[in-house]
């Protein structure tokens, strides 16, 4: 549990951080450190340079853009995602998601940007951000680009971020529609065995206007369940036969297989969750 020797650079601004990343090949950003430090200590990961972005105030900001989009700095902690009133008002599902993350200590230090970049298949934020159609802002010393979270996550612990590129902001289109977000794990603080984030809007006459559903801990990366979404859209919520939709739509999933749950069990749990959560949403029950 002693990391290999590395150089530590503390950035005071985004520009300085990007410059450090550019100047040091093999460097890596340290955000909250909640996944990175254990990896360093177990020597699973041995970067030569660490660029610390904990001391850059602008990365801790939460703003509302002129078009109504939420702009959340990469270094906003899980605790802040829960407590921040702008986030709670405009994307309550995101605050609810953060409540499920790990334990108090991790929520105090861990950050939304760090969690996204970690790209753990069982991570809590990813299904929610996918359901919200969120985007991330990636910067280098020369450029800036926006990528959908869904595209940014490439596979287990793999993202689109390139050398010298840093995630600086998460852009979340506001969503005040009815939602459910849950993770199932044996212990409260564990990574999910199955997780679901679902946003469903019903029209006054009970038709499904919008349905965005994503799941995590199932495949090598979290993903949207579009087959279910399209089966629901436009239907009268009372006439939906969920079991008939969920069964086939999850048939092709190839869930993870580890000590915490085999693929068949994970699929079983996911189906149960979807059936109950979507059932609640279709009946219009508020969270």
């Amino acid at each position, binding site marked *: 549990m002693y990391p290999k020797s590395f150089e530590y650079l503390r950035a005071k601004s985004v520009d300085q951080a990007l410059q450090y990343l550019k100047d040091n090949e093999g460097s890596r950003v340290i955000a909250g450190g909640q996944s990175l430090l254990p990896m360093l200590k177990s020597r699973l990961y041995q970067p030569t340079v660490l660029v610390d972005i904990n001391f850059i105030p602008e990365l801790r900001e939460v703003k509302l853009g002129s078009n109504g989009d939420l702009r959340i700095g990469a270094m906003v902690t899980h605790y802040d995602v829960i407590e921040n009133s702008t986030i709670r008002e405009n994307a309550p599902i995101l605050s609810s998601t953060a409540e499920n993350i790990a334990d108090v200590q991790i929520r105090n230090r861990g950050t939304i940007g760090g969690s996204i970049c970690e790209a753990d298949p069982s991570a809590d934020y990813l299904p929610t951000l996918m359901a919200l159609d969120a985007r991330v802002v990636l910067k280098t010393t020369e450029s800036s680009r926006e990528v959908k979270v869904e595209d940014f996550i490439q596979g287990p612990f793999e993202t689109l971020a390139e050398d010298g590129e840093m995630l600086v902001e998460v852009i979340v289109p506001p969503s005040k529609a009815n939602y459910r977000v849950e993770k199932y794990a*044996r212990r409260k603080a564990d990574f999910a065995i199955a997780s679901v984030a679902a946003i469903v809007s019903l029209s006054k006459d009970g038709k499904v206007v919008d349905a965005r559903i994503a799941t995590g801990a199932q495949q090598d990366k979290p993903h949207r369940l579009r087959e279910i979404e399209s089966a629901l859209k436009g239907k009268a919520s009372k006439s939906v036969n969920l079991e008939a939709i969920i069964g086939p739509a999850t048939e092709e999933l190839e869930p993870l297989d580890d000590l915490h749950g085999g693929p068949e069990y994970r699929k079983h749990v996911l189906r149960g969750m979807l059936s109950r959560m979507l059932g609640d949403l279709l009946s219009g029950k508020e969270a």
Partner: protein
Amino acid sequence: MTSQKSSTESLVLQSEKGTKQNVGKRVPRIEDLRIVKGKAGYTDDIEMADQHYAAFLFSPYAHARIKSIDVSKALELPGVSLVITGKDIKELTKPMSSRAATKSPTSHYILAVDKVRYMGEPVAAVVARSKYVAADAAELIEVEYEPLKVVASIEDAMKKDAPLIYPELDTNEMISDHFDFGDVKKAFSEADKIVKERIRIHRYASTPLETFVVNAYYDPTREELTIYASDQQPGRTVQSVERTIGIPSSRIHLIVPPVGGGFGYKLAIWQYVALASLMSKMVGKPVKWVQTRTESLYAFHRPRGYMDAEFALRKDGKVLGMKLVDWQADANWPYVAALYSLIKFANMSGTYEIRNYSFEYHCVATNDPPIVQDRGVGKPFMAFALERMMDFSADALGIDRVKIRQVNSVPAEKMPYTAGSGEVYESGNYPEAIRRALEHSQFQKKLEEQAKFRKEGRYVGIGIATGIEPGTSNLGYYFLSKAGDPDYNGAGQMATVEVAADGVVKVNMNGPEIGTGHVTTIAQVVADVFGITPEEVNVDAWYDSIHGHLTYAGTYSNAFNDVYLGAVLTASNQLKDKILNIASSLLKEDREELYLANNYICKLENDKEKRLVGLKEIARISYGRLLSFPKGEEPGLKVTAGYINRTAKPFVRSDFNVQLTHSNSVHVCFVEVFPENWNIKILDYAIVHDAGKVINPGIVDGLAIGSTVSGIGGALYEEFVFDEQGTNLSLTFGDYLKPTAMESPEIRVDQMESPAPNTVLGTKAVGEGGAITSLAAVAGAVEDALKPFNVKITGLPITPEKIWNMVKDTPEYKKINKEGQ
């Protein structure tokens, strides 16, 4: 027994002459403020001048021949002063030997020699100037392994052509034996029903927050080895270090600062104490090693195994006899091999009157990692097997699970009760404990709730289990296979009590303080002897081998309340006697009229307390003003006293006791299983715990709750999982699941007091009861909840996925999932 009783009585009487205000009270733990402020001062907080650090290279293979080791790159690294391998160890040390097993391998050393036998076995060691350099150097050691066929199970180990873990023994079965008590044959021939089941136990372990920490310095100027270590059994460690590396025990000075959790795990540290000591002697520098979390999860655990149990039953539920055959994968650590089976004699027939039984055990070497005497050792599994068999027997006979326990309980009038093998249950009232548990748990109300929930389609169940919680080790089980009076025994300890020169009462129990409230408990007991408050007693929480101690000094086997308190009280009373004698001479007062209260020597005058002289003044005279010191007394106010619980029997195969006190408990667990994911939630948990006389009810509650949560961990969450190559797949706390506060139910403890006649204050064992009784209570509750699915739980941990696999093909499952999920 008679002489023991009278000396016990006199000790109790003497202590009761004091103010008697503190024993029995919920005194808040004195040591806690330091702990929560991070100022407890653990072994890792100590650094010596010119401190050097050790790191080990551990085997990634479970079974492999070591073809070659190249240490040259490691030695070239700046800051590295030593690298040793098995080659050096073979030259410089003696192999470890078996204690209970009659066979002893000759190839098992403190560092692997020529081959590795488990994943995580230390293969080479480094000493360097910093812990980072040491870790880097360990990584640079190049080992060429030739993987050998892995023995991954007891079944594999017993196959004819199985690879041998210790080839020199010609077998993987280190030891086996068979015992018969009563008339088993007759019992089975008279039975109305015979119930038979194979019950399994998995691999799990306690994981103290503080891992192994050792800091050793061999001082060449004094030719003395000074060691700081987080060690639970320092008396034994000194003996083992002497035997292994050849430094005489008279030249070993071992100090144990407060220990950050013991649980038995810290009994196994001695191997690394020996290694650090040897390396310090080789480099002439103090050598410190702090085990990492991953390293601490490699070993030492409880063994996995199974028991074939067969019960001969009468129609009314009476158990006429039982046959038990115990298989344990516990021989890949010859030092304590067979222990997990032999200690089962301490609670083999549980709280029940079962006169006829046989016990056979097989101690088998596999490539599982080593074991240690983890909380309760083999007793949790013994209780699990016995209590599950009680449930299965009740079900087979169609009688109630509570009823069968009532029918078989040892009747109160038969106490003290001698079990078939000779184990003496000195105290307790088992039928009353069940009665109180039914009341305390609101059992009847729970049954009604369960019926209501079942109608609503909810799966709710109730489990009940009883258990014996033995304390104080006679260590006799080691010698069931060997003749003579063993060199070690846990039935005695020594302690030191003094009034220091400043008049303060100071105690050193001279055993490791492992966080279980010893400081406060001792302070309460000693305060009552000297008539002061617990806060005024200075309890030194360091073990230091320069103080008087016995060769098996240590905090283990639930023995504190017996032998350490016995030693502390003996020393306290001797010292009080001396103080009153001195005071009597000085004051020319009748000795019998004097007593101690509020730091003064007092006497009653007209029924009013008169303070004659301060304790401080007596201390000044006793240590300094020797011209005033009375003739006929020795100066100084320090007493080291030893104490033995004399109820330990010599070892005879047909009549022996392995432990000397027996607490007991009844657990009632109420659970719900959720059919969406088959997760289990404990809705209520009620315990009746009888630990005899209780000194501090708060501390005893805490230990009952803590040990129960560790049992819940074993029942529902914790398991070291290995693949077929013997690779440990659970080397982080993300994969080895400890229950956290979020998973722990509210546990309600009702304390019952049946004092032990053979301990100084009537106290008994406290720290292991929950770990012993809870496994079966939880399993019984889950099984009861799943009754509509007709499943049988014979192994642990009960995970949601396992439940799903058990239920998914049942008619009930199909009924509730008829929509075709």
